[in-house]
């Protein structure tokens, strides 16, 4: 297990290094994708390696010239990487999200890396509108055409279906790992689980899938310990720093589940393998919110706080830690309702604001330790 995890952790730590090696070995294109709700299958079917563009751990330097410090760490880091020339490995960027900060970032990249094609067509964000399906189908068709123009050849439906099958298999295996983690059937730390998902956002899917199969075959049960079972929520576009995940577990917790983007949010939904791919992508996109709500999408009848309370219960977690990215507006809008719902239901909750820059881990430690104490007492009292 350790050898597989070590490989995945290495890719997760340096995703662009992996992409460069892959490109050198295969001679094929690498296409960057922005989060949050965007399928990589189409780019894969076009013969490219789709990678979700990640925040890196370098301080923001040259990027300061093009982004204000009141933007989220992900956007500032992406701009900084672009200006440092890190995206030279990318042959194009594809995305469809409407986050206002991300739209600004895309424009900065377009201005500073003018040779980089950026294929953007905005996805419908009102998921329950009567026109949502036809509009979303149109958006995916347009992206398909633009991608064909980029690669200079038609992309066949069968090729796309094959990519969908491969991605589904990959997601399914990760969901199995999630299930095993909930049941204590695999000894995975939160850092390791993040590496598994993050590396899947970057690696060649066939290679990653083979490693997942090996990992599951080698799974070892987690030894029972007197720890607080914790659910993590938030970080909807990029991975929280592993040091924070370590801190949660060093303070007497064990992460049993999450709705993080570099986590369950990335893997929870499969795409239909049988029908026309444009319809399959559209269905996948429009129904995602019914499974794991996202505050950036408008859909009546879906409550993130209800989902979270339910998910915490299903995972038998004793409390939830929210990792809120500083300056992430959608999360800031919905946080008060989550907080109130958890208070009403007596479920311990801790909110930690995270930043791109180094955070005072000692101060966080005190807060997390207090949270663990509260969670333990509540569990005893229950």
């Amino acid at each position, binding site marked *: 297990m350790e050898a597989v995890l070590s490989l995945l952790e290495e890719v997760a730590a340096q995703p662009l290094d992996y992409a460069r090696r892959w490109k050198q070995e295969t001679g094929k294109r690498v296409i960057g994708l922005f989060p949050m709700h965007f399928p990589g299958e189409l780019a894969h079917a076009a013969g490219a390696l789709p990678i979700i563009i990640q925040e890196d751990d370098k301080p923001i330097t040259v990027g300061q*010239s*093009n*982004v*204000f410090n*009141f*933007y989220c760490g992900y956007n500032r880091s992406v701009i900084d990487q672009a200006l440092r020339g890190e995206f030279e490995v990318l042959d194009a960027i594809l995305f469809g999200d*409407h*986050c*206002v*900060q991300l*739209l*600004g970032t895309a*424009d*900065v990249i*377009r*201005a500073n890396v003018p040779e980089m094609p*950026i*294929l*953007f*067509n*905005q996805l*419908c*964000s*009102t998921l329950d*509108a*009567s*026109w949502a399906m036809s*509009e979303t189908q*149109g958006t995916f068709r347009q992206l398909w055409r*633009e991608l064909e123009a980029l690669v200079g050849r038609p992309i066949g439906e069968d090729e796309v279906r094959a990519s969908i099958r491969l991605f589904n298999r990959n997601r399914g295996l990760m969901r199995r790992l999630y299930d095993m983690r909930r049941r204590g059937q695999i000894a995975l730390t939160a850092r390791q689980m993040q590496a598994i998902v993050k590396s899947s956002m970057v690696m060649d899917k066939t290679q990653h899938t083979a490693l997942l199969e090996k990992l599951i075959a080698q799974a070892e049960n987690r030894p029972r310990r007197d720890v607080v079972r914790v659910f993590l929520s938030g970080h909807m576009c990029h991975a929280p720093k592993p040091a924070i995940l370590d801190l949660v577990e060093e303070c007497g917790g064990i992460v049993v589940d999450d709705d993080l983007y570099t986590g369950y949010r990335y893997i929870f939904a499969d795409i239909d393998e049988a029908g026309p791919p444009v319809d399959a992508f559209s269905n996948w996109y429009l129904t995602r919110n019914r499974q794991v709500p996202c*505050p*950036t999408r*408008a859909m*009546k009848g879906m409550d993130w706080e209800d989902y979270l309370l339910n998910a915490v219960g299903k995972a038998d977690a004793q409390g939830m830690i929210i990792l809120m990215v*500083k*300056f992430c*507006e*959608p999360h*800031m*809008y*919905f*946080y*008060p*309702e989550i*907080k109130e719902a958890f208070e009403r239901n007596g479920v311990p909750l801790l909110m930690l604001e995270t930043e791109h820059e180094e955070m005072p881990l000692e101060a966080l430690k005190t807060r997390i330790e207090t949270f663990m104490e509260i969670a333990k007492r509540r569990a005893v009292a229950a």
Partner: protein
Amino acid sequence: MLQVVERPSASPVFGNGEKANRLRSTKFGGRLVNDYWDSLFRAKEEGKKVIWYNGTYIPPFFHAHDVAWVHGEAWSAYLAAKHGELPAQKAGEQRGYDRELCSYARTHIGQALIDLDKLKDGTLGIDADDPRAETMRKLPPPDMIINAYPYCSSGQQWDDITYRLFGKKVPMFTVQIPLLWGGRPDAGYLRGEEWNERSTYVTNQLIEMTKFMEEHTGRKYDFDRLSEVMGYVKKAAQLRIEAMDLCTATPSPASFFDWIVSIAPVNFLPGDQNLVTYFEGVKAEIQDRIANGEGAVKDEKYRLFFDGMMNWNKVGWLADKFAAVNACVVAGRYTHMSFWQEPELIDLKSPVRGMAQNYLICPNNHGAPIMIGEIEKICDKFGVDGMIMHASRTCRGMSNSQFLIAESAKRNGRQALFFEGDVADESFYKDELLNTRLEAMIESMDAQRRAA
């Protein structure tokens, strides 16, 4: 946004102490705004349905259907004008809304939280008999919520929260106005495949919006009435642009700050003869000033462009600050690119598509290359020497691309300065920083002229 917050003027120790020579004709707008709010506060008594909306200037659709409307941004500004924004923002913060959230939204949501029970409890730190509380109590609750934000994802989320605050029971409709990214080979200002597709998409949604109103009022939508309302709006928009164009004169007879206080009529006031009368008055005063050689700023030496959302707490303050260094802010992105900027697109026989197109060309809703191209055209037209970049802390829709705009200005031989502030949260504004930067900019412009 349209209501001006009158606060103390710029410090007399700054510059030469001159004040802005603001247009007198805009006072009529103040009366229209007050009439609008008074009529809104009576809406329920008069049996009208009330729509709360956010985003672009869709009130002609409401006016034509005889419903009352509340613009969230304007309401936040109204509270600010009555010095009521702080209790509203405090109420929002008490519930856990972070101060880095859009301050329009925080003010609006905070206000919604201030209901009578809480006021009676005194839990919001404001007495029930406080006049500010009285103002807040007047706002009629929504019968419908409509969201129509170009570009800004935060705007959609803001209305989601409003919907939730009212118990998820008020019917809500969202119009999606997608970004014109401008990535296809034929992309350009008002042209290309993307422009045509998006125009149709937004038009269709606006038609759906009228059906939504029909459903919740039980009355048929009258498109002839919409054409009639749009007749006034189109005429007012034409007059406004003609009057703006007259300000290419030197000295400029009006400034950006006069246009700022003239936004209400083209943003949310009812589309009737008053709009036309307002801009006829403004245009006539501008023509008089040109005839008399009277400028908006005494001894105009520099002409500037204001980029970014307005700092609504500082309208008078900033107008005087620039006047005190003989600088006239002659144009701005918010005033000169954002409201009914292409009235000729509106066919009064069938106005919806032209309205959709005007909503789409909100400058932020263009990808940066096209937007910056349009800014450059305005700067050339008005003979701009320098750019004032207001980095509005909680309005990312406006602060996006500002570094690119500044770069473009420098390439075109224009100075640029940045200052930080906000749309409705005064605490982000640092006066001394702007003073220092403005003085430095003036010196640079002088040096540039001496070297020329």
